[in-house]
């Protein structure tokens, strides 16, 4: 079965430092991978996706993610963290086996990012 794992419940980083939020996946075939962010009292917002092509994917708000097939990872990164980046981050994979071409997503449990001034 398709799945994603986010091994860290929380990541703490100082403002201005680089940040990494980890995600590993398990899929049959080629993975379609996504990152979403959830701010308090707001809906999940799409950050970026990997479908095919370059392993380094750039997304919204200065975030990027690196697809690593050999390590089955899709870690989210940002060179310089902002306090406003503090939120809940979800990695997701498209459920290709059951999906009839549409994007039925399987989410990880989420990682809370806390950026301290």
């Amino acid at each position, binding site marked *: 079965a398709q799945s994603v794992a986010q091994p860290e419940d929380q990541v703490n980083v100082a403002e201005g430092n680089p940040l990494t939020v980890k995600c590993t996946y398990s899929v049959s075939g080629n993975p*379609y991978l*996504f990152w*979403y962010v959830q701010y308090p*009292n*707001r*809906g*999940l*917002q*799409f950050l970026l*996706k990997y*479908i095919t092509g370059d392993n380094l994917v750039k997304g919204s708000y200065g975030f990027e993610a690196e697809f690593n097939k050999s390590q089955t990872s899709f870690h989210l990164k940002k060179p310089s963290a902002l306090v406003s980046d503090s939120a809940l981050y*979800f990695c*997701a994979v498209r*459920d290709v086996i*059951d*999906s*009839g*071409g*549409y*994007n*039925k*997503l*399987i*989410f*990880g*449990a*989420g990682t809370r990012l806390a950026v301290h001034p």
Partner: protein
Amino acid sequence: GAGVSQTPSNKVTEKGKYVELRCDPISGHTALYWYRQSLGQGPEFLIYFQGTGAADDSGLPNDRFFAVRPEGSVSTLKIQRTERGDSAVYLCASSFQLTSYEQYFGPGTRLTVT
């Protein structure tokens, strides 16, 4: 433009009651998804609509849950004989078409069953 809206934002109901949760997708979006997010977990897929029809309802936990989208726009998730275990945030998302990768999520309805 307007995003996905969901009403009510909060719903408290007694065990055994019936509830309806409403989702207004972005205008023109044909694909609509419902997810359920329990405390400390990521969203879990419930059902997917393409237009008016439920193309995949494999995530609905049991026959107490039902969803409709009669005119291909607004969708209603219906839960009969609610149980305490149904307490969660119910999220709706829409996308432009079947193959669109980006889903736009609403703020959710927090359902509490007492």
